[in-house]
């Protein structure tokens, strides 16, 4: 067999002479305004981008958010402190438990009862929070892969997410609108057999992650769309306040769970994965690794969780048991006062922060001492990450918007509130 064949050339294809080099003068282009969104198949979430393109290249991008604004802060000012939990569910709607955790911690810090929360309640919060973090990352990764044409990983990820959602459904009765936490603890205890079911799901999820990683990690098409695209530097993160997986993909090892441990996070052994380049692939890899770290935390938490009360024992904060409410006038009045007047939170201001799926989720609460907040501000992590997009997209191709936007993981409910 003759191995000395000349390498294939494409100088002449079907009789048409190709340019001998690629220095041929480019076709003249002129800037073209292009509108993407607010409802566009490649945008998860509702966001509008007004682009100015030269050929395929983006020369400027105006990212317009706000299409999912539902007056979170205004509504909160008219609700009692407890009634805000359902609103927080809808902030980052693929990890609602983490928003519940962040808000509950903020109110408890303002009331000065953070140290009195029973240990079991803290463990429950860690467990449901880490489950939510897994569902958050799985949705982001699956959806991003799907937008690049890889539909199978999306189905695999959603299959695993469904197991976790079904488990959360057993805990609180809802997949998304959980409202499971209360000021002072949780609404109920974990159901019977929860630990075994979760361990079983974690085992199966590990297999799913292996499958997905086999499909994506060395996939030529997937890597070509992600490698070296959309690079964010550490300096950008500090300037724009970018935290969470996007911030860590640049090598900035800032994780609230490690840097300012809350709940019982200081009792677990877990790593904070960081990237090196800050491109799309690093963001993908950091999220995959974080799912694995969440599973480590969950396994340790299931081993350590103690028995005991799941809510603080303070009649000014929690509702009396139903048997009391219906049978004694004192409990009936206490119930009525807590529902109608709301829990009384002392006047003051507080900023409380926790690690949500997208980064530092902050609550800045101002209380005037009544049963309703004077101001309830959310510091949404993906608002900060999205605000770098106009700078990030400049110079990229139109096709790069899809993975870049997907892996920033802008969640409309949280960004627009």
């Amino acid at each position, binding site marked *: 067999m003759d191995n000395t064949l000349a390498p294939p050339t494409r100088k002449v294809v079907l009789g048409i002479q190709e340019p001998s080099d690629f220095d041929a003068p480019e076709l003249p282009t002129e800037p073209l305004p292009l509108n993407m969104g607010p409802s566009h198949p490649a945008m998860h979430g509702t966001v509008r981008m007004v682009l100015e393109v030269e050929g395929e290249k983006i020369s400027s991008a105006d990212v*317009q*958010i*706000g299409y999912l*604004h539902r*007056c979170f*802060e*205004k*509504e909160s*000012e*008219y609700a009692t402190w407890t009634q805000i939990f359902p609103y927080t569910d809808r902030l980052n709607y693929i990890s609602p438990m983490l928003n519940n955790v962040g808000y509950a911690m903020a109110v408890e*810090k*303002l009331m*000065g009862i953070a140290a009195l929360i029973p240990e079991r309640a803290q463990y429950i919060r860690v467990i449901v929070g880490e489950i939510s973090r897994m569902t958050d990352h799985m949705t982001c990764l699956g959806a991003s892969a799907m937008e690049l044409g890889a539909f199978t990983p999306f189905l695999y990820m959603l299959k695993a997410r469904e197991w976790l959602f079904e488990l959360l459904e057993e805990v609180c009765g809802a997949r998304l609108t959980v409202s499971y936490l209360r000021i002072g603890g949780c609404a109920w205890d974990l159901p019977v057999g929860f630990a075994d079911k979760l361990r079983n799901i974690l085992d199966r999820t590990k297999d799913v992650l292996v499958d997905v990683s086999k499909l994506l990690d060395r996939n030529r098409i997937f890597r070509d769309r992600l490698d070296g695209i959309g690079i964010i530097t550490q300096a950008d*993160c*500090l*300037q*724009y*306040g*970018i935290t969470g997986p996007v911030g860590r993909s640049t090598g*900035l090892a*800032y994780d609230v769970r490690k*840097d*300012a441990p809350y709940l019982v996070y200081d009792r677990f052994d877990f790593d904070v994965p960081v990237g090196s380049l800050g491109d799309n692939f690093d963001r993908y890899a950091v999220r995959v690794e974080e799912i694995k770290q969440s599973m480590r935390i969950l396994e340790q938490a299931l081993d350590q969780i103690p028995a005991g009360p799941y809510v603080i024992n303070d009649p000014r904060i929690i509702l009396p048991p139903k048997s009391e409410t219906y049978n004694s006038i004192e409990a009936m009045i206490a119930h009525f006062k807590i529902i109608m007047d709301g829990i009384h939170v002392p006047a*003051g*201001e*507080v*900023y409380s922060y926790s690690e949500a799926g997208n980064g*530092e989720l*902050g609550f*800045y609460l*101002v209380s005037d001492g009544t049963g309703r907040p*004077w*101001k309830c*501000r959310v*510091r949404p992590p993906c*608002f*900060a990450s*999205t*605000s*770098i997009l106009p*700078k990030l997209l400049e110079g990229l191709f139109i096709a790069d918007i899809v993975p870049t936007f997907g892996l920033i993981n802008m969640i409309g409910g949280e960004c*627009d*509130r």
Partner: protein
Amino acid sequence: MSQNVLDRVKGQFTAGELLETGSQHGDEWARVRRDAWVTVATFLRDDPATKMEMFIDLTVVDRFSSEPRFDVVLHLYSVSLKHRVRLYAGAPEEDPSVDTLCPVWAGANWFEREAYDLYGVRFKGHPDLRRILMYPEFVGHPLRKDYPKEKRQPLVRRQPNSVD
């Protein structure tokens, strides 16, 4: 935890610039005159003892019926030294404005746009002070305490005498 940040600021600025400092629930805060807003923020970012490199949050509180009516609230974090601080700058109702922080932290851009959109506080020198969450045709600033919660401003208005 970050009391030394406040001590550092107190040592650097006069009483005319730094009005008040305090600590509540473990959060340290300082109130500055709005003329010194950018100077104090830049100092906090650059000083080796404070190193507040990371912009965290900027918002406004409407302290309706007290003076000054608006408080611009800034949260900062130092990644290297792991401490936080909160800054206030008051802005009166008749002239609700402070200088922009965009040259100090580029990320202040969208946060200031949001504060302008929802509270009507103007940021002098901001490169692109447009509404961000509400639509451009919206009238008023919805998070002000005197904006009624029930008020509706539908973008698509029905014609007064349309039949449907």
